[in-house]
């Protein structure tokens, strides 16, 4: 069970040759996530969602503020699912899984096969990524993130490049694996229905990287997007999302 504490986090990108202006991706984000919860970070494009996730993962440094992702007092082990699968094309599916493992033992191999079975891909463990469809590759990406036994699972719009049907089936796979492991999860998305289907809590980020709203989602799992209760919550979140966009459009300040 991981704890993520984010205090007054800002990230400003310096001007570049192609874009000679400073860009504020995050403007003082404060939030905390504790326990075996699935938190969706919802926001429109340019609200700093991916930047937030990259800083939590430690692959980017903040301009100011602090981020602590800990598990039992030590830095949390992170599993990351990216927008694209990011598989090594010269390794088989199984070897892609084993790449993120510290020890290459029979046990780690069995674990890799277990998670591949969870996402329905054990039969193709010997194939190379180029021999798989985009949806299958992303399923490998999901299985890989769970394989490292993460204390904290980070997911950056993992279904945004998928068609609606593939996205739906991948969400089902993700729910199945998450219900089995119950890892602390931060899931970035701009899709309201995706956030409602998967999350226990939705943090809404407005452009400029400020938390606008914090919405608890109290629905039983596994969730079906066609369930009237899920659709009702989805409408409520959508209404709040619209009011945030209106507030941004008319220059109002965040709460």
């Amino acid at each position, binding site marked *: 069970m991981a704890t993520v504490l984010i205090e007054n986090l800002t990230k400003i990108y310096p001007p570049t040759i192609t874009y000679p202006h400073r860009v504020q991706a995050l403007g003082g984000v404060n939030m905390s996530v504790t326990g075996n919860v699935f938190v969706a970070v919802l926001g429109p494009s340019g609200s700093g969602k991916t930047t937030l996730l990259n800083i939590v*993962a430690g*692959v980017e440094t903040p301009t100011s503020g602090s981020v602590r992702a800990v598990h039992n007092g030590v830095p949390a082990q992170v599993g990351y699912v990216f927008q694209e699968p*990011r598989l*090594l094309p*010269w390794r088989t599916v199984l070897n892609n899984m084993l790449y*993120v493992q510290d020890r290459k033992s029979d046990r780690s191999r069995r674990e890799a096969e277990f998670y591949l079975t969870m996402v329905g891909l054990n039969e193709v463990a010997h194939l190379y990524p*180029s021999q798989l469809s985009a949806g299958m590759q992303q399923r490998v990406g999901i299985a890989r993130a769970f394989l*490292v036994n993460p204390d904290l699972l980070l997911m950056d719009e993992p279904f945004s490049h998928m068609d609606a049907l593939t996205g739906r089936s991948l969400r089902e796979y993700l729910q199945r694996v998450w219900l089995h492991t119950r890892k602390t999860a931060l899931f970035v998305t701009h899709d309201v229905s995706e956030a409602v289907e998967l999350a226990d809590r939705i943090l809404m980020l407005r452009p400029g990287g400020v938390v606008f709203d914090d919405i608890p989602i109290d629905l039983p799992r596994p969730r079906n997007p066609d369930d009237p209760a899920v659709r009702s919550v989805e409408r409520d979140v959508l209404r709040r999302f619209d009011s945030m966009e209106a507030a941004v459009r008319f220059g109002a300040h965040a709460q």
Partner: protein
Amino acid sequence: MLTVPSVTPDAISALSSREMRRAVMRRWLFRFSVLIGWAAFIGVWYFFSRLVFNPQQLPEPHVVAGESWTLITERDFRTNMQASLVRVLGGFLLAIVISCGLGWLIAYNAWWRTLLRTIVQLVVSTPIVALAILTLVVFGVSSLGPVITTAVVATPYIMMNVAQGLTGVDRRLIVMSESFGRTRSQIIAGVLLPSSLISVLAGARLAFAVAWRMELLTEIFAASEGVGFQIRRSFESYDVRGMIAWTVLFIAVMLIFENLVFRQIERRLQGRTA
């Protein structure tokens, strides 16, 4: 009115067997066209040796083939080819070691990039005959000279491809590795080296061909054994048959390396990254 054709398992099976037959036919046609190309080359050779030159100036293909066979069965062939091969491989391996280090510097350091690019231009622009003569002046008639010169000539090609391979690495794979806590050495072994391998291989193939030619030329001037030395000896005794036979054997060994080593590695790598 449009009719939708019925798709039955039998129809699919018939379609796939037809496709299979076409694929086999295409492969055989390709092989046949290659054979025609070789036959045309030998025909042109006969034409020139019989009608344009005399057999002393340009021996006929079957005469050269006979001479080549005689050379192969002689003990001299093994000694000379081995001497050339050892020098080429020595120079080539030296070039690979130097190129990996320098390619790394070019990829990640602007100062080294500017300096080494200038040196590369200098080496590539230098006539290889001048380098061969310089080798004779500096090293005399020895085995070391051809090895060093071969390495000097081959290095720029491999080095630039190593640099290109490293700068062309998908940054997202490095970010992925970092996010999963992979160490620097794990990222080098797991991402940087494999993803730059195709580019390095392309440079190595080119460098190997250049290294062979350089080695041969250096042997003509500065060696007491090897294929180049034998070509010079045949020339000095006006043995055109021997000259061409040694050249043909030299090309044959080059082709064997190209097809059995480089092309196989390339096929293996491309199959994985396609």
